[in-house]
């Protein structure tokens, strides 16, 4: 395979369109004559029986076409992806504030808005639970408890020199994709619908629509151009809005648009799952962690959504980047009266890692050593067994860790910080190292498959369709690179088509950091099939030998490494005339992976991604505010096929993780009502709050891995570097107030910092 060196900075045609405002998102699509606007009437109480509901007056409002209730659903009133436990429209009971009850279909948005206020509803309140531990105590679980066991932790604690126990909390996180949830749909012939959806999972939308409308999947076409951000929030939950638009158009036979207002989106959709966790950690004399027990209480919200799967990934990552020979990890997905929580970059992994990092930090402080001493002594090595049975190969944990320590010159940094803290009364600095080890693949083995469709047109241009969705992660440029690479032609010849379920069926969602790997391999396979038929035509046409090696380099034919001065375009035109197949459907299923849920053992990941970040923070101990001075990291990218995209993912993930750990605070009151319900009350990082310096070095490894072009997945892993910011800030608080009772409760907002600085 011939690689072109400029590829690792390839940008693609997408970005020039973005900066000109020409990229099209759902709400930018020109609407057709007669389009109906849909507004959702949703629950204002978190748990209740609906005693009565009256929308007669609302339906008579000028401009209202029809108001839909659960009774109007022709198929099944069910949108649950993993477990069928979630109605599209509430029927008789509501289980969270923001749950959809009625759909108002109107000539315009204003009319719908007016009608909204004319709906009369009476509730009979039921008990509201917002805390996962309370739900657990009452036996309210969304799915059965899961347990991963390695060795024998309870026996081993008896032999440990140090044993510590504690509790941690991590809050949720609002996705805040800048483009809100939405869909546009219209009815097509033969009882069918076509839906333009802002979704990470086109097939999930298709399947859900088919179920709710009571039609076959081939009656439902889903098309996705791109998303204005997804981050997991549109993996499963976009199906709701796609289905709403589809239902309205299916019944009314008029195009229907449902795009959420930001406050509706925040109120109705689920977020990253909050977790409450208990841990017990045991170490020997040499600070080797011998045993670890952890119990997770995941706040799943009112329906399963993806929570059971997220829970599983929490277990997979409960020991982060460390080898611990005796582990018992138990996880409960608890049912509460909050919007169903869902996927968010990291997918339960960050929540699991936070606990082990807190356990190590607590142990270090009790023993009187720096936490990094414990971290370093317990890093994973080749041949270590993980709690789920996978054996570590091609481990880069120690290399990333030591590279970061060197890069930051840890011993002199430590002294600088001590000196700074001694000389500044109201400013204190803290630092923390955060190693990561993240498994790549969907943990649900079935999902690790992908298809792609590649057409070469008679003028030599190429169209590529995949099952992946471009949402800012740089999938499309990377797919163009893969196709260009495989075909030996220029990237400008290749166009990425929209993601459409009639062109590429049975797609896995764009998630689990795996989209580029899976779809890239499928594109590569399709291109190879075209090469096979095309090259055999060439051999015939040019009367070459069967053994001759035919390839294209920059669109010029090479035979056995010799240029033939014949262009791609010319040969494609001839191949078509000679009736050669110039289209192919590629397929890929990740080899070697497996997982047996009955034993909770297997080899679920095609590979792991490693890295370590060091974070230094400064706390203003008068005001309780903080800044991140810098983050230095060494990250295992394999062999990056696109450095610009990868650095964007790394920095973006890091900052999103810092947001989760610092300022992003989701606040529900005890009635399950969201108080942080707008951008004015829920704050995500702005340009002033990011680290002053971010310096991420690629650990460039040539090891064989299953990543496409050996360029490892880069979407989720860097988010977990943000956990380092939590500990750096916390350490600065302790430098000011060593007796602080500050708990391991994230995010570490300015409120928690100030209270921590001055409590006794």
């Amino acid at each position, binding site marked *: 395979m011939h690689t072109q060196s400029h590829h690792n900075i390839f*940008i693609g045609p997408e*970005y*020039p369109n*973005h*900066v*000109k*405002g*020409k990229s*099209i*998102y759902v*709400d930018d699509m020109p609407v057709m004559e007669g389009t109906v606007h849909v507004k959702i009437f949703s629950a204002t109480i978190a748990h209740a029986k609906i005693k009565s509901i009256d929308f007669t007056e609302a339906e008579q409002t000028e401009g209202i076409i029809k108001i839909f209730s659960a009774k109007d659903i022709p198929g099944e009133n069910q949108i649950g992806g993993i477990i069928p436990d979630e109605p599209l429209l509430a029927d008789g009971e509501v289980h969270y504030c923001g749950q959809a009850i009625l759909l108002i279909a109107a000539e315009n948005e204003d009319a719908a*808005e007016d009608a909204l206020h004319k709906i009369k509803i009476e509730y009979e309140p039921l008990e509201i639970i917002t805390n996962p531990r309370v739900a657990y105590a009452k036996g309210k679980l969304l799915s059965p408890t899961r347990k991963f066991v390695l060795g024998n932790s309870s026996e081993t604690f008896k032999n440990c020199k140090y044993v510590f126990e504690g509790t941690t909390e991590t809050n949720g996180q609002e996705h*805040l*994709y*800048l*483009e*809100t949830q939405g869909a546009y749909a219209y009815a097509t012939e033969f009882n069918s619908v076509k839906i333009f959806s802002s979704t990470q999972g086109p097939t999930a939308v298709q399947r859900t629509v088919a179920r709710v409308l009571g039609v076959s999947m081939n009656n439902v076409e889903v098309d996705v151009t*791109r*998303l*204005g*951000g997804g981050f997991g929030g549109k993996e499963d939950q976009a199906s709701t809005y796609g289905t709403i638009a589809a239902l309205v158009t299916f019944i009314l036979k008029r195009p229907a648009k449902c795009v959420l*207002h930001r406050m509706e989106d925040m109120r109705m959709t689920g977020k990253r799952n909050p977790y409450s966790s208990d841990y017990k950690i045991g170490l020997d004399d040499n600070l080797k962690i011998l045993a670890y027990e952890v119990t997770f209480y995941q706040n799943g919200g009112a329906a399963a959504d993806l929570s059971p799967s997220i829970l599983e990934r929490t277990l997979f990552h409960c020991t982060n980047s460390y080898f611990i020979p005796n582990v018992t990890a138990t996880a409960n997905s608890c049912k509460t009266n909050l919007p169903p929580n869902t996927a968010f970059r990291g997918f339960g992994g960050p929540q699991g890692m936070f606990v082990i990092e807190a356990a190590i930090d607590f142990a270090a402080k009790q023993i009187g050593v720096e936490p990094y001493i414990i971290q370093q002594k317990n890093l994973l090595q080749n041949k270590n067994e993980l709690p789920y049975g996978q054996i570590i190969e091609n481990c880069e944990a120690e290399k990333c860790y030591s590279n970061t320590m060197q890069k930051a010159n840890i011993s002199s940094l430590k002294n600088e910080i001590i000196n700074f803290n001694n000389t500044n*009364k*109201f400013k204190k600095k803290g630092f923390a190292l955060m190693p990561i080890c993240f498994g790549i693949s969907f943990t649900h083995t079935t999902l690790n498959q992908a298809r792609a469709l590649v057409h070469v047109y008679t003028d030599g241009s190429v169209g590529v369709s995949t099952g992946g969705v471009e*949402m*800012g*992660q*740089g999938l499309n440029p990377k797919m163009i690179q893969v196709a260009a690479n495989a075909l030996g032609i220029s990237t400008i010849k290749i166009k990425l088509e929209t993601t459409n379920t009639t062109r590429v069926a049975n797609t896995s969602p764009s998630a689990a950091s795996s989209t580029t790997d899976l779809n890239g391999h499928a594109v590569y396979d399709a291109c190879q099939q075209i090469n096979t038929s095309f090259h055999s035509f060439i051999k015939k046409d040019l009367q070459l030998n069967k053994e001759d090696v035919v390839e294209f380099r920059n669109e010029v034919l090479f035979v056995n490494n010799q240029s033939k001065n014949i262009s791609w375009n010319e040969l494609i035109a001839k191949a078509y005339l000679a009736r050669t197949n110039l289209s192919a459907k590629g397929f890929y299923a990740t080899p070697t992976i497996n997982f047996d849920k009955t034993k909770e053992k297997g080899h679920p990941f095609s590979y792991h991604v490693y890295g370590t970040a060091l974070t230094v923070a400064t706390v203003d101990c*008068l*005001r*309780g505010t903080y800044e991140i001075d810098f983050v230095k990291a060494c990250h295992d990218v394999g062999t990056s096929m696109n450095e*610009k*995209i990868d*650095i*964007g993912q790394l*920095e*973006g993930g890091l*900052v*999103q993780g810092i*947001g989760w750990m610092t300022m992003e*605070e989701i606040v529900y009151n005890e009635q399950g009502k969201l*108080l*942080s319900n*707008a*951008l*004015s*009350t829920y*704050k*995500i*990082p*702005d*340009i*002033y709050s990011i680290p002053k310096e*971010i310096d991420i070095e690629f650990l460039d490894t040539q090891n064989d891995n299953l990543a496409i072009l050996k360029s490892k997945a880069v979407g989720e892993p860097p988010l977990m570097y943000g956990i380092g910011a939590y500990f750096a800030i916390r350490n600065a608080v302790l430098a000011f107030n060593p007796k602080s009772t500050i708990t391991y409760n994230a995010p570490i*907002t*300015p*409120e928690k910092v*100030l*209270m921590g600085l*001055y409590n006794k």
Partner: protein
Amino acid sequence: MIEFILNNQTIKTEQPAGSTVLDFIRYHKKLTGTKIGCREGDCGACTILVGAFENNKLVYRNITSCLMPLINAQAKHIVTVEGINQTELTPVQQAMVDSSGTQCGFCTIGFVMSLTGFVMNQTQTNFTDAIKSIDGNICRCTGYKSIEKAAKILSNQIEKRPTHNTLNWLIENKYLPNYFLGIEERLRKILIQQFTENKQAIKLGGATDLNVQKHQLIKKSIVQNLYDDPSLKTIEKINNEIVLGASVTVAQFSESNIIQNIFPNLNKHIKLVSSSPIRNMATLAGNFVNASPIGDMTAFFIALDASIIFNTNRKIKLKDFYKGYKQLDKTEDEIIEKIIFPIPSSTTFFNFEKVCKRTHLDIASVNTACLINVDNNNIIQQIYLSAGGVAPYPKYLSNTCSFLLNKQISEIVLQEAITVMQQEVAPITDARGTTEYKRLLLRQLFLAHFKELNVEINFIIN
């Protein structure tokens, strides 16, 4: 009818005067480059440029179009991304592409427009200004480091920007299309509206809060624009007082030389107040009548001992304007016309403090301003203290001020003042913090005033 120029096109529209410019450009003119992110001015996805005459000079500012009422577009130049696009990328767009400053692309246009406003604005000259121009733009994919690189490229480029004939330079270098040359002349031919009072109308300043809270109502109501009334736009020094027109924006206030000379730390203080696009729209009087318990400029002006004058010529102290939560000492027909504050003497110290979840572009958990005069014996000769987030309205800490007046600053006095202060506030628990936190924070920010005044406050560390 409202008349203005949208990009290169003259617009005369009968659309509701209270509807937003965002809806007009996206849904009536189908210019979909401008995105909708939040409709409350907090994300910047809908950022556009607005050209208007200030002191008879055409000035372009970036604003969030979701908050701008259509009536405020009268006689202005509204510029969307479609209005700067040319065949090739502009240098701003090129810088964003070259530094990979775009990922999902949804926030990108907002950044492009803000940075275009930066290169157009004669008063903005360096990297710090470039970053300031995008302080109201949120990127959730958080390519901020890449966007910083784009800002760096552009701040280097504008080192060559001449101070005269700037527009020609901008056009020659393709930052702007040619048609910009004719805009000033075209705009001058459009009449600014008549500012006759309409009693039925909802009065709009910058509408930066009304359009968040009451968007639907404003859209359906008769509205009257106070924002562009020239008589409400003045900044004057008269004897020992500063007299401000009620519609002076926070940006105009903070950029004024007269004001800059009075407050040496003004830029530091103003940086804590919302964001550039909001400051470009929000009026001072609007902040006062909004009566938000955490209004930043209200806290600021209460500590300046400011007064307000209504159209009825009635004059009251700003600190006496508030009677309860969103309750004002103001009749239906009264409109604030002037804001007056005495110029602090050269020995006077003024400070503004604010803490929120995010340091910038956020609403305070607690804010406070302090004006203080201390003599050589450390005796407090004059003190005005205000605080937001600790009462149902912006609070003048009268008991604390009375307690401190004529006292010599000492640890004991400050400790006792804190006790007095805690008795006159009653913060509530909400999304911005618990009661306990807000009380502690108020103490800390009170002490921060004194620390800024170089008083030792080490006693709080124990």
